[in-house]
């Protein structure tokens, strides 16, 4: 059947099972925009800024595990997506970004609203396409979705010129993808897995160090099973939170710069690190030369480039976290005998880690002022830990990681790798689109929220009752904290003077607004806000100079922690 490129686009999305797209129009999108007019089965959420569209599609993907989709116009529409794309790339999030482009004949001529978006985004996409002929469109869309979600997931950009969306050709959606140069490895090498198991049996102080790969591959259940089978303590990266229930007895918390004492000491004392779906980021490892100085390292990752990139690995296993963990569980089950000696000698190690946990818990000083950590604890309590939590970046993000005990995977949406202020709110909107009935909360900073505050319009227009809890400290707090510690308290640029009245701002957008100024208001206001059914800003005036502890100064080793 003959169809226009725009119609092919719509059909292809339906076949891919896309139910929601985040979009913003322009001259170059018009063919597609028009073709979507009578297709409400593809819910079209029109945002206020293209960065918001990409973050929303990213939040949608993180919360649901499905591929997130955005569609924007050429030139400035396309360039506005860059931060969103780079954010998703760093955290391996499957999204497809459709940018529209000027006519193929005009490409390269500096035409009106032309930007070489494929060129601009090349280093921050998993792959990208410029569709030069409408005949290639269906195949390219098929490949784009496949590449985005398979292997180590990531953003894929498809640039569609206007004459391609208006061009006509026969439509047939390919059934299979055939890319000879792209075959991700899912099953780890059995020999390597056995070698790893042997190494574990011989260890006395093993630690599981797990990251976002656990969430992506859906390996939470297998991870918990494996950890319990061999009583191995677990530490998580920021991206891995929720991979093990926050209150689990083997869970030592997040490691790294603002990690727990127990997690960082366990890494430092360990004789065997079992890294799964984590990539030894510098915020997690601290000074690499002194990371896990006594340990051999097993590393499971689907991306071979992550292995031995920052830290030399002893036993590499390329494969999907879930499939490798499953295999490990099986082998341990079948070879119980081999673990007799191990089991007999693991007790002291568990005691040691338990002591660290008990003696150095995450804590903060209650002194009558309104503490941000307290607010987060209350959010946890009032939601039974069942909300989907997005964060912005800065202290708000770290306190959330520390004090909200994530119970399940895909309940924390946070920009880990890029650290993008302004991510949380649109990401929360995306998650709310994926789960209209769930409570979605963005824990924000007063700085970050102003980076994509315009999406309040989107939330109100589409009845997305996202709750934004602004931990308003009047500062770009995380940067201020570094100035306090390392620049003699010269708070240059970081005092947020001239902040808007967030309650009035919410009102101006038609959203609900609340203010909290003391501890005793926290519970009642949050309770009301969480039940009002509307998009909501909650301006919480927290103690301005509170800092995030523990802290490992940049470039120091994990054992050099500032405790309070």
């Amino acid at each position, binding site marked *: 059947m003959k169809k226009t490129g725009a119609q092919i686009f719509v059909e292809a999305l339906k076949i891919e099972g896309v139910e929601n797209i985040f979009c913003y129009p322009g001259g170059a999108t018009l063919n597609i925009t028009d073709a979507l007019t009578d297709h409400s089965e593809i819910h079209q959420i029109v945002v206020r800024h293209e960065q918001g569209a990409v973050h929303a599609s990213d939040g949608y993907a993180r919360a649901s595990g499905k591929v997130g989709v955005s569609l924007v116009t050429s030139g400035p529409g396309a360039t506005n997506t860059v931060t969103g794309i780079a954010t998703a790339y760093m955290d391996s999030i499957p999204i497809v970004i459709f940018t529209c482009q000027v006519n193929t004949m005009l490409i390269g001529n500096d035409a009106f609203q032309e930007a070489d978006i*494929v*060129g601009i985004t*090349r*280093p921050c996409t*998993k*792959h990208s396409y*410029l569709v030069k002929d409408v005949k290639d469109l269906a195949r390219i869309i098929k490949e784009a979705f496949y*590449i985005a979600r398979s292997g180590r997931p990531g953003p894929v950009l498809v640039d569609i010129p206007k004459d391609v969306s208006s061009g006509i050709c026969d439509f047939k959606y390919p059934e299979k993808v055939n*890319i*000879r*140069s*792209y*075959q991700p*490895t899912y*099953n*780890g*090498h*059995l*020999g*390597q897995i056995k070698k790893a198991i042997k190494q574990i049996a011989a260890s006395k102080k093993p630690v599981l160090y797990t990251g976002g790969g656990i969430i992506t591959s859906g390996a939470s259940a297998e991870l918990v099973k494996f950890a319990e089978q061999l009583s191995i303590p677990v530490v998580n990266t920021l991206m891995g939170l929720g991979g093990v229930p926050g209150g689990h007895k083997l869970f030592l918390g997040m490691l790294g710069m603002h990690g727990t004492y127990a997690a960082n000491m366990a890494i430092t004392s360990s004789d065997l690190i079992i890294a799964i779906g984590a990539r030894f980021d510098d915020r997690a490892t601290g000074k690499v030369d002194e990371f896990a100085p006594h340990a051999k390292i097993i590393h499971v990752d689907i*991306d*071979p*480039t992550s*292995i*031995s*990139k920052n830290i*030399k690995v002893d*036993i*590499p*296993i*390329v*494969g999907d976290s879930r499939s490798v963990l499953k295999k490990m569980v099986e082998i341990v089950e079948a070879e119980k005998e081999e673990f007799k000696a191990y089991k007999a000698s693991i007790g002291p190690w568990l005691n040691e880690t338990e002591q660290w946990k008990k003696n150095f818990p995450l804590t903060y000083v209650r002194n009558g002022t309104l503490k941000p950590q307290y607010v987060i604890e209350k959010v946890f309590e009032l939601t039974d830990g069942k909300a989907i939590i997005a964060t912005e970046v800065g202290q708000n993000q770290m306190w959330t990681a520390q004090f909200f005990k994530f119970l399940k995977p895909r309940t924390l949406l946070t920009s880990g790798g890029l650290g993008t202020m302004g991510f949380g709110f649109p990401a929360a909107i995306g998650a709310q689109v994926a789960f209209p009935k769930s409570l979605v909360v963005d824990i924000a900073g007063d700085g970050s929220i102003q980076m994509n505050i315009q999406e309040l319009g989107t939330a109100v227009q589409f009845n997305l009752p996202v709750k934004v809890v602004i931990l308003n400290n009047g500062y770009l707090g995380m940067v201020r904290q570094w100035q306090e510690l390392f620049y003699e308290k010269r708070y240059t640029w970081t005092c947020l003077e001239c902040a808007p009245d967030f309650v009035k701002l919410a009102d101006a957008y038609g959203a609900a607004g609340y203010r909290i100024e003391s501890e005793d208001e926290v519970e009642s206001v949050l309770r009301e806000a969480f039940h009002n059914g509307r998009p909501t800003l909650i301006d919480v005036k927290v103690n301005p100079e509170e800092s995030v502890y523990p802290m490992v100064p940049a470039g120091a080793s994990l054992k050099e922690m500032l405790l309070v």
Partner: protein
Amino acid sequence: MRHIISVLVENEFGVLSRVAGLFSGRGFNIESLCVAETLDPTISTMTIVTSGNEAIIEQVLKQLNKLINVIKVVDFKELDYVSREMVLVKVNAEERTRAEILRMTEIFRGKIIDVSPKTYTLLITGDDEKLRAFLTLIKPLGIKELVRTGPIAIARGEKVIKLKDKPLEGGEEDG
């Protein structure tokens, strides 16, 4: 350590910039780069000369493999190989130097491919060492301009680089 790497890629637009961008973005070094179509016109070979310690070269190979359009990556350090490079040299050809240039060119089995009243243009092929030796000898006679291709390489003997799956460290059984 200097490595010659052969990269088989889809013969499509944009692939060269992906490869070049990878090197610049990650701070890898490219000494030379040679690209052309293979026997199969859908595939091109890029021969890249790069250098770095073992860990860097390992990353170079893995990162190249990770690019979606890259079909295969071969590090010739792992293989017995032959490599050649071509150089075109324009030299001053004066009355008193002509005979010497001719003699040199002959010894190095080169050719004179263009002549003008004041210059000869020479073509020499060989490995890096040979070209360097030739250029050292010819330099005192007055080189006006020089263009090199960068090396290309091929495995010795019957070994052929096939389009098998990408090799993976610790990957699937038959890898």
